């Protein structure tokens, strides 16, 4: 490859090709069930990014993905796989839902927000602490332990909300509703909550830490060659724990943001499964914080647009996730071709 700009563009081209392939495959599936794919896609784009409402909804939907991505950047760049994002998210969300009503009554508004956020971050970190220690001390695969902790959290939060911390006045098991004036504030002149700013800031902040600081450098060395890191005198176990704790903390923060801004309470059995989307997404962005933003927007746009169109065209809402899954698979395949062409 002679032109340096073209080399840099390769990943972008591969990503766009992957999106095109998944749209074409989804179109074929639509044809099979007797719907017109052109009508579906034109409506999807019109509703998803053609109207201010669609764009704003997509941006709002993007927030948890961005916050979780910030944490995943930290652990992925250290070569560690935190698959239990869902668990950390739920623990953070549950703590926020449980503590917010009481805290908001007793503390001034800014301090209350700060305290709730800290609580959620602590919850997320607590939830990854055990896998982190097991990985650092005994080299037990974190993929499986985080996955397991995630299932503990799903059941534990459901149990806690149905029993011990339940608001007994409500029939569906949930925490008391947080009053509207105690939710996250909006960005001035919009109806987008400040979680978005938090998300972008944490994402780009982590990106900077990983690329420009000693800690980030250590993460990357551990990922590239653990033996070299040990020989260079790095405290590898401690760095592993830091990296995983950061990722758990951000997942917990995402839970807080969703409860304080969108849901207003924590409900038993509520699990938006943001991890399922975010984990592949961050990897496909090649651990580049800037690249996460457009990808996160694309997936949120799919979700929001797909929900709008489902109502209008009578295409079941599950189709959005079919497209999402296809896009991830095509993205994974495109990695191969992107690498190939650069090598040649």
């Amino acid at each position: 490859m002679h032109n340096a700009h073209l080399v840099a563009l390769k990943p972008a081209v591969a990503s766009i090709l992957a999106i095109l392939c998944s749209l074409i495959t989804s179109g074929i599936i639509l044809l099979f069930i007797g719907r017109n794919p052109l009508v579906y896609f034109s409506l999807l784009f019109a509703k998803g990014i053609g109207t201010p409402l669609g764009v704003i909804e997509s941006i709002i939907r993007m927030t948890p993905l961005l916050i979780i991505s910030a944490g995943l950047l930290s652990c992925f760049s250290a070569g560690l796989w935190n698959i239990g994002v869902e668990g950390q998210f739920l623990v953070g969300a549950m703590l926020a839902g449980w503590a917010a009503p009481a805290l908001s009554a007793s503390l001034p508004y800014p301090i209350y927000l700060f305290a709730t956020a800290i609580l959620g971050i602590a919850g997320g970190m607590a939830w990854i602490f055990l896998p982190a220690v097991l990985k650092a001390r005994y080299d037990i695969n974190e993929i499986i332990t985080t996955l397991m902790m995630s299932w503990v959290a799903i059941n534990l939060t459901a149990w806690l909300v149905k029993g011990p911390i339940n608001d007994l006045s409500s029939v569906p098991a949930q925490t008391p509703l947080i009053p509207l004036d105690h939710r996250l504030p909006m960005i001035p002149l919009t109806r987008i909550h400040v979680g978005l700013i938090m998300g972008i800031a944490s994402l780009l902040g982590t990106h900077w830490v990983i690329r420009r600081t000693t800690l980030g450098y250590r993460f990357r060395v551990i990922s590239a060659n653990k033996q070299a890191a040990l020989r260079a005198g790095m405290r590898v176990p401690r760095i592993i724990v830091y990296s995983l704790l950061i990722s758990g903390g951000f997942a917990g923060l995402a839970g807080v943001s969703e409860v304080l801004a969108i849901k207003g309470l924590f409900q038993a059995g509520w699990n938006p499964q943001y991890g399922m989307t975010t984990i592949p997404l961050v990897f496909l962005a090649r651990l580049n914080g800037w690249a996460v933003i457009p990808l996160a927007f694309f997936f949120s746009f799919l979700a929001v647009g797909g929900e709008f169109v489902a109502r209008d065209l009578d295409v079941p809402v599950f189709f959005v996730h079919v497209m999402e899954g296809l896009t991830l698979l095509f993205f994974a395949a495109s990695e191969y071709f992107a690498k190939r062409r650069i090598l040649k």
Partner: protein
Amino acid sequence: MSPLFESALISAMLASTIRGTTPILLAALGEAYVERAGLLNLGIEGMMVAGAFSSFVVALNLNNLLCGFLTAAVVGLALGLLFGFLTITLRANQIVVGLGLTIFAHSMSSFLHRVIFGNQFPILFGAGGTHEIPLVSQIPVLGQALFNQHGLVYLTFLMVPLMHAGMYKTRFGLRIRAVGESPWAADAAGVSVDRIRYRAILLGGLMAGLGGAFLALGDLAFFVPDISMGRGYIAIVVVMLGKWNPLKVCCGALLFGMAMALTSTLQVTGIKISPDFILMTPYLVVIVTLLLFARSTNLPSSLCIPYERGQKGQ
């Protein structure tokens, strides 16, 4: 409680433990081979749901349960092939592919179910029939629980010693373990790493598909999108707990099967322990086990690492 009621309850709980274990065990036995070969299949959940859905639709339309199970086997093989193509041939990241496959297969099943049946959830009459084994089924308490089950249940538990022997006593099993432990050594010894891994993932897909089919045709006789409820992920945990040894994997699967059976049994007896709490306990057991025996996990060394000749992995 009267003794008669008590023994009936124990028998019912045993029976439902065995029934609940079967789909997890099927998927986990396959996954044990897959992980031994160095692949981590996070797509099991999706494969199980796809197996459940496809088997249900075919069995309902053809009114033939066997055709249903065969369809699930084919769907499982196809998804296994897709996973293999992406991760072995294209060397894509296994976690990305696994999660993508689960999202795709799960939502595709839910989507097609909605397209075909709308908001209806038809019931397949005749599914879930049991085969009573004469004589041994007359043993008090145990007999009805263990020997009056669906045919696939017997087959699954019969497979445990077979898969164990296959893993440790056959050339194929040796090659699987070699490929997962040090692929370059296996390659140097003339074993095709890719071919062995393809065989393992095809086996894994087949078993996961059948596990899903058992849920729909052997256990429930209907399909709902949430039919699997994380059993695919449980299978992965169970394989880790059983350290890739089919006999131990079976014990781990029984642990989760028992927890599931407990949730319904306790409700019958009126003991007020939340099902969520009980479902959480097996995971805690696994974590405590890990903490106690932490030093002795011998994970296949090249798990999740794509193999490329001449390169030492990533």
